[in-house]
């Protein structure tokens, strides 16, 4: 069977992993829909508004990005542009080296995953500690996140307790509170020792230069409190026009991500420590990462950049839940990843991940839950069309050619013949045919009896009856 890579991965997935994902996503789906239904009478209206707010900023990024840069500089922030992930790495490793620190604390950032930042800092002899609990476990296990909000959704608490025991963080104990206390104790000294802290940015306001950072564990705040230098890494699409867009976007982000009404912490950072502030970083840098984002702006898939990384699309996606985030072979899994994954690879790398857009029934559940109203099924179809046009190997694997269908469907005489002669299918051992497509269908499904031609004959006889 010439099937696609995501399907092959899913079929080999450990059942314990699948159950962990099923349980984790089910919980969030329920919390999300409960909170949203209770709080908003016109959720679709809000989703559309939030989509417009995001799209407005993206459609005018040529104005808002330089404006954000000016405001950030006015606030005493040093601004860097990184056209590529490699350049962003150079900038960040340069800053870390210059600081002389050996320890860096990191809070959760998907952009930093694009850089594989923690590992690259380790390469230059710097301990870059992931301080989000889930990411910390990922780091202990030398694993990769499988979800953008819940990075260890594929693990059980027993798995986590095992990892802690293995890495000298106490004897096996899978009580979540014990696990959390142990992580806290371990991290505390690191927070105090770190000279640099690296965060992501959920939004950056072009109006004020404020950087919004959302966490539930307070780890970004603790990082800021302990470090001398703050580096915020953000995709260029994180810029929003105005501060007053934040209440809407934060309200939808947090409710969609976890079903909470507000996350435990929302930082609004407007620059390095001022003269009147007793503590906080004395230096702040914002690194804007492009990495093929500017190619998406203004194009046919431009809406994908609205994404505010809530993870609702993957929670709701039956394909994601069957296959796990790791099936998507990159930083962004689930429906958003099927579009963003190949596009962020750029012109040359598109084909490597083009098959991800095949991993969807186009059922539209993702589009329905997206808080910024991204038309995900349409974008997935567009990526498929590009993949077909460019003839990507990964995207075409297991996809039957449309040649014969096209011929018959454009010639009604042939079509009517095919309808009649299709009845031979009723006599063929279809399950045994050595055709990939046939086996892919018939191994697990039957087909109803072919009855082509009957309706048309009925219609004719009825018409003749009426005419007579």
């Amino acid at each position, binding site marked *: 069977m010439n099937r696609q890579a995501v399907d092959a991965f899913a079929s080999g997935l450990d059942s314990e992993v699948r159950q962990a994902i099923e349980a984790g996503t089910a919980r969030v789906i329920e919390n999300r829909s409960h909170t949203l239904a209770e709080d908003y009478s016109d959720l679709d209206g809000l989703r559309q508004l939030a989509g417009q707010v995001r799209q407005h900023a993206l459609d005018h990024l040529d104005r808002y990005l330089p404006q954000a840069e000016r405001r950030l500089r006015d606030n005493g922030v040093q601004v860097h542009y990184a056209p590529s992930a490699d350049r962003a790495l150079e900038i960040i490793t340069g800053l870390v080296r210059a600081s002389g620190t050996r320890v860096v604390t990191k809070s959760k950032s998907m952009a930093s995953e694009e850089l594989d930042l923690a590992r690259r800092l380790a390469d230059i002899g710097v301990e870059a500690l992931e301080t989000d609990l889930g990411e910390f476990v990922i780091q202990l296990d030398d694993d990769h996140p499988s979800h953008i909000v819940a990075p260890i959704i594929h693990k059980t608490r027993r798995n986590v307790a095992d990892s802690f025991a293995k890495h000298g963080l106490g004897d096996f104990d899978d009580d979540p509170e014990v696990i959390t206390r142990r992580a806290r104790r371990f991290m505390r000294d690191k927070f105090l020792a770190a000279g640099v802290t690296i965060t992501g940015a959920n939004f950056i306001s072009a109006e004020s230069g404020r950087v919004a950072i959302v966490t539930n564990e307070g780890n970004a705040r603790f990082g800021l409190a302990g470090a001398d230098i703050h580096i915020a890494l953000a995709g260029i699409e994180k810029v929003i026009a105005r501060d007053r867009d934040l209440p809407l976007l934060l309200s939808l982000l947090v409710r969609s991500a976890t079903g909470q009404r507000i996350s435990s912490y929302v930082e609004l950072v407007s620059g390095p420590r001022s003269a009147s502030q007793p503590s906080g970083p004395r230096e702040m840098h914002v690194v804007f990462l492009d990495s093929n984002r500017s190619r998406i702006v203004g194009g046919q898939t431009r809406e994908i950049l609205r994404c505010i990384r809530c993870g609702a699309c993957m929670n709701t996606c039956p394909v994601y839940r069957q296959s796990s985030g790791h099936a998507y072979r990159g930083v962004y899994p689930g429906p958003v990843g099927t579009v963003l994954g190949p596009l962020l690879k750029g012109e040359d790398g598109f084909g490597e991940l083009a098959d991800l857009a095949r991993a969807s*029934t186009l059922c539209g559940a993702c589009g329905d839950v997206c808080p910024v109203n991204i038309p995900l099924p349409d974008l997935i179809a567009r990526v498929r069309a590009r993949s077909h046009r460019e003839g990507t190997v990964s995207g075409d694997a297991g996809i039957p050619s449309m040649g014969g269908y096209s011929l018959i469907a454009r010639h009604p005489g042939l079509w009517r013949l095919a309808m009649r002669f299709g009845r031979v299918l009723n006599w063929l051992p279809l399950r045994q045919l050595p055709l990939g497509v046939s086996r892919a269908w018939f191994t697990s499904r039957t087909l109803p009896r072919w009855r082509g031609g009957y309706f048309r004959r009925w*219609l004719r006889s009825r018409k003749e009856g009426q005419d007579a």
Partner: protein
Amino acid sequence: MLTPDRNPIQGRNVQLMISCLCDAFFDDAAKAAVEILQQAGCQVTVPSDQTCCGQAAYTAGDWETCRQVMRHTAKVFAGPDPVVVASGSCAAALFHEAPIAFEGESDLPVMQDLARRTWELTDFLRNALGVDQWAGSLAARAVIHHGCHTRGTATREAVRTLCAGIQGLEILDVPDADQCCGFGGVFSVSHPYISTEMGRKKVTDVLSVKPDIVISADMSCLMHQQGIAGRLGSEYPIRHIAQVLRDASMGGLE
């Protein structure tokens, strides 16, 4: 799914698109579609040159082929009369997907015109003809399966409303009713494992409430579900909504 603003209905002439699956497998559903439209007072034309809406090629990403097939469909269903489709997903292919696949093409206006004339069958009955009660009776415990291509369209409410008016028809609630059954056109053969797992979950959820029939405005979903159930050795009686409406009318006459 975005439904375009449709042209107002003038007269009672309609063109019926039966869908390729009804053409090949489900002739009785196609017959029932003709009969209920006539019962609702329509003059029904069924163009014999109709083939397929082109959705298979759209989802496969082969938009050149998709446009060729859709052009043929637009030619067959030319003229001012509404196009009523006995399938939610084929209707959506014409009113939602065609305008996307034809961006930048010189005949985009032709497809936009087709989009404004295209209706899923129950949406047409309910919202174009204003049928809010379907007289008839049918003693059955039924599950309604809403095909994913009817998300965000008026079809879901129309199917529910029409079924609600039928005496003796009991509609059962199913767990995770909104979840896709895993068909997805080419997806079912490019991702057979995931598709099958999704299909088995759907079939198990539906059979858990022991329905007499499973009703949908889309035979494609029902064909997939029945195919999955068939390999598992389970009976899975499927009915197109048109068959339910027709049978209910006949039951009402008795």
